């Protein structure tokens, strides 16, 4: 199934909850409302001719002070999906504001979403509603802040942690 057909299928199933779609350099992307994310992911995984059985990555982008996007939502959460049987890919995105940075979890659909969402929480401070164990994944517990946010100072030093006794 080619990318345009995948996006057409998503628009047909989700209607206006697909905010817009684009294909840049062969990367087909659908931008969704936050509430539509769990349903969209379930459609992608379970529809027979889509069958996105592999959640490749969940990541996020911080658009703070990004030229041309100063007044839009600050964060964008990106889902990369791949279908092993059909050999096709799609990207789903959703935008969240800084003071309401919560996205529904995908852990019920793909178990790997557990760690991927923990990484996004760790690095960007975006929460995932319904996640069973939302702790930091890469940084240690005593770490303060979320280092991949654009307003995290690049040369900030955190206090060293001692051996656990």
């Amino acid at each position, binding site marked *: 199934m080619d990318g345009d057909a995948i996006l057409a299928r998503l628009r047909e199933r989700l209607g206006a909850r697909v905010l817009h779609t684009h294909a840049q350099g062969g990367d087909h992307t659908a931008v969704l409302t936050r509430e539509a994310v769990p349903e969209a992911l379930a459609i992608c995984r379970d529809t027979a001719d889509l069958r996105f059985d592999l959640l490749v990555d969940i990541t996020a982008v911080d658009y703070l002070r990004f030229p041309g996007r100063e007044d839009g939502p600050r964060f964008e959460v990106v889902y990369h999906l791949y279908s092993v049987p059909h050999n096709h890919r799609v990207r789903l995105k959703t935008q969240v504001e800084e003071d309401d940075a919560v996205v529904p979890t995908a852990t019920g659909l793909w178990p790997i979403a557990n760690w991927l969402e923990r990484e996004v929480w760790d690095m960007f401070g975006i929460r995932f509603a319904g996640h069973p164990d939302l702790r930091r994944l890469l*940084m*240690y517990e005593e*770490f303060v802040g979320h*280092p991949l946010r654009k307003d*995290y100072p*690049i*040369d*900030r*030093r*955190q206090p*060293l*942690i*001692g*051996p*656990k006794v």
Partner: protein
Amino acid sequence: MGVGAFFTSKLDDAIGWARKFSIFQYPFVTACCGMEYMATACSHYDVDRFGAGLPRFSPRQADVLFVVGTISHKMAPVLKRVYDQMCEPKWVVAFGVCTCTGGFYNNYATVQGIDTIIPVDVYIPGCPPRPESVIDGLMKLQEKIATGTQRF
């Protein structure tokens, strides 16, 4: 000079000479510098010439802690614990720029030099250091071991 003083200074020399040729290292290898460490340890450069040919993988059996590679904040407590577990006398070698100063990693995750955690005796800069610089550092460490006050 009394008889005792003569014996003590010569005994220090003898022990220093023995200690500098029995460097049992603990390789704390975390990153790419490990490759250069292995190259140095193998037959081309042969650190066994300096009595440093036997790495011990228990800090209790080691004399020298070789910190080889980037140390992150998350790893820092582990390094400190390994250092604390080593028996006296002990020495520390910072291998590569990451351990010396943090290297080019000026970011949220990297310790800016292991001397912020543990005392360091010899710094070997380089990214990674050539085996020749490692051997140079090792010889400087031998000199330091041999000429220092021997406690036993």
